[in-house]
């Protein structure tokens, strides 16, 4: 018996060890490294830029010059007439892209604030990467709004400044709500990005020389990490996490009201608010997954911080959000279709069977069919480039949704003699420019800002441990806050 028992016991111990090693390999927070080593890894990410990086940056820079500066400049000189918008489609791709970018911006808040509130530990290594998306995406949304204005030099009319012309900002207008909500969100998300960055900037200050040291010293504000500083920071982050969530919901709800408060077929829907919010989160989380895949593939040491576990969880999140989006989409469609209003029925038929019908089907395929058919599979979720592709397709699908809502839905209205078509003009290069600007800003930020919040990762690692429940190794998390 003893002869048999020995190898069995050995095998069992080996199995236990394997299981524990697997848990550590899977979960960053169970696989700690000394803080100094993690700091060095994060500092290493920001240095050693290759020629490939600068080549891509140069291409993006050229696209920004062509799209944002040249094309927009031409439009400012020539007038809004060179854009494709005209009666009855007076809102075109500029508004599609405004909604698109604001949607992407929801990722940072959703991932960082909501997951912080619910103490979802897996968020820790990528909150900053997501928060950066929020700030940069909102900047692109701003470009789209200003471009849509046409006479952009009159933007100050949106400010409540007393004037001689008796033109006064009308705060009852949904466009003013937009102005307030987007600016509130932009300011809040930038502050929310900056606050948890301060300890990491201090870390970078302690480890750099030359111009970098000067920049980090200024940005770190003299942070040392005293008990008081940590208490103030933690308190502020908790307030931010709770308060930024209703702002996030309000922003996209207000964007939806730009459409929903109009008495137009299809737009005049009471469910547009939550439908837009879920759509924004859908595109945003998919975009976070895409960005994380690219960061992991292109930045040194990122594979330590971003693991298949993170993609797995993001894949599950995307699947759930896709279901929620489908629910809201069908709810809206069902009620409008069942209502039997002649012009609404006409428009809904136009969505599916008109000139742009293929976009309507593309929307459903990308937003529903693809995630549902793929993301139930763990192997697919854990495969970064497959998840990237799915995220990209979802963003194509969400772009298609906004295209259906804006120009396609404006083409058909209650007065058939005013039906019309839409053909995009200068909107396309300006969008390409804004996309390039988003990528360029992100690339430059990845060389200046610590992309991983090291102190948050270390805090998470302090809170995680493996304990034995009988023979089974079990992950245990302590609430350190």
């Amino acid at each position: 018996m003893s002869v048999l028992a020995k190898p069995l016991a050995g095998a069992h111990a080996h199995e236990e060890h394997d299981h524990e090693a697997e848990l550590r390999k899977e979960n960053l927070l169970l696989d700690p490294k000394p803080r100094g080593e993690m700091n060095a890894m994060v500092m290493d990410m920001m240095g050693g830029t290759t020629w490939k990086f600068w080549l891509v940056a140069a291409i993006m820079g050229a696209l920004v010059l062509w799209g944002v500066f040249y094309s927009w400049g031409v439009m400012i000189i020539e007038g809004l007439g060179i854009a494709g918008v005209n009666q009855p489609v007076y809102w075109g791709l500029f508004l599609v892209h405004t909604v698109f970018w604001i949607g992407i911006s929801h990722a940072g808040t959703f991932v960082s604030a909501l997951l912080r509130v619910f103490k979802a530990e897996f968020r820790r290594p990528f909150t900053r990467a997501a928060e950066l998306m929020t700030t940069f995406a909102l900047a692109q949304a701003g470009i789209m709004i200003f471009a849509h204005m046409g006479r952009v030099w009159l933007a100050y009319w949106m400010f409540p400044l007393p004037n001689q012309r008796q033109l006064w900002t009308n705060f009852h207008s949904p466009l003013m709500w937009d102005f307030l909500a987007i600016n509130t969100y932009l300011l809040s998300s930038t502050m929310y990005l900056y606050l948890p960055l301060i300890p990491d900037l201090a870390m970078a200050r302690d480890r750099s020389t030359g111009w970098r040291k000067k920049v980090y010293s200024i940005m770190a504000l003299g942070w040392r990490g005293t008990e008081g500083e940590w208490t103030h920071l933690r308190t502020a982050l908790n307030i931010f996490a709770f308060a930024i969530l209703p702002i996030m919901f309000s922003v996209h709800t207000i964007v939806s009201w730009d459409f929903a408060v109009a008495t137009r077929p299809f737009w005049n829907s009471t469910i547009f608010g939550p439908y837009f919010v879920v759509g924004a989160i859908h595109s945003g989380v998919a975009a976070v997954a895409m960005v994380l895949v690219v960061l992991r593939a292109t930045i040194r040491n990122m594979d330590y911080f971003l693991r298949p576990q993170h993609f797995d969880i993001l894949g599950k999140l995307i699947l759930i959000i896709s279901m929620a989006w489908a629910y809201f989409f069908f709810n809206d469609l069902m009620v409008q279709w069942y209502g039997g209003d002649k012009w609404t029925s006409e428009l809904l038929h136009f969505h599916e069977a008109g000139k742009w019908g293929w976009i309507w089907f593309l929307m459903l395929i990308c937003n529903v069919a693809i995630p549902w058919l793929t993301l139930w599979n763990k192997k697919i979720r854990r495969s970064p480039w497959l998840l990237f592709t799915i995220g990209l397709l979802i963003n194509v699908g969400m772009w298609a949704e906004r295209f259906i809502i804006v120009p396609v839905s404006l083409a058909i209205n209650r007065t058939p003699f005013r039906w019309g078509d839409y053909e995009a003009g200068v909107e396309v290069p300006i969008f390409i420019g804004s996309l390039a600007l988003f990528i360029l800003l992100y690339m430059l930020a990845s060389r200046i800002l610590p992309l991983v919040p090291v102190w948050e990762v270390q805090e998470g690692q302090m809170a995680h441990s493996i304990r034995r429940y009988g023979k089974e190794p079990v992950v245990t998390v302590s609430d350190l806050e």
Partner: protein
Amino acid sequence: MTETTEKNMLLALFEDVDPAAHAVDKLRTLGLDNEHVNVISGTPITEAMLGRPHQKTNIPRMAMAGATGGLLVGIFFAFGTPALYPVYVGGQPLFAVPPSVVVMFELTMLGIMISTFLGVFLDSHFPSYGPKVYVPEISDGYIALLIDCPEEQEDEVKKAMTEVGAASVKYAEVQAL
């Protein structure tokens, strides 16, 4: 450029929380209570972990003040400005509650955010680039106890800190941050 503090203070560095917590207890037994010890760390070490009193913060109060201020600005925008400069649009009322709620909400939230952000600056005295006691090891995960002790007790404190596991005990130096 570093120099020692005006009054020689000791800086004990610990690699882990447990010895730092023991050190805080030990300092108490030596008669050095909470106001003679400051903790500096690269990760948020809560006061409870080291058995120290809870730090006070004014940030929640500032956030409330910001919310109130934001709400007042919102009320002014929504109800005050139409009264000052009436613009009649399509026969709509000048003072309407539902659209005003949106304006008041956004400005209230903006007030909370800005005041919370500024609260961190005010409570932490940021920005503050002047010379302060600090060593870069802190951001490498070390926990520093900054001890203000009488000169005659220095040797005793150094010995006690080393005994409970301090990685180093030295005179605190100030440096520009």
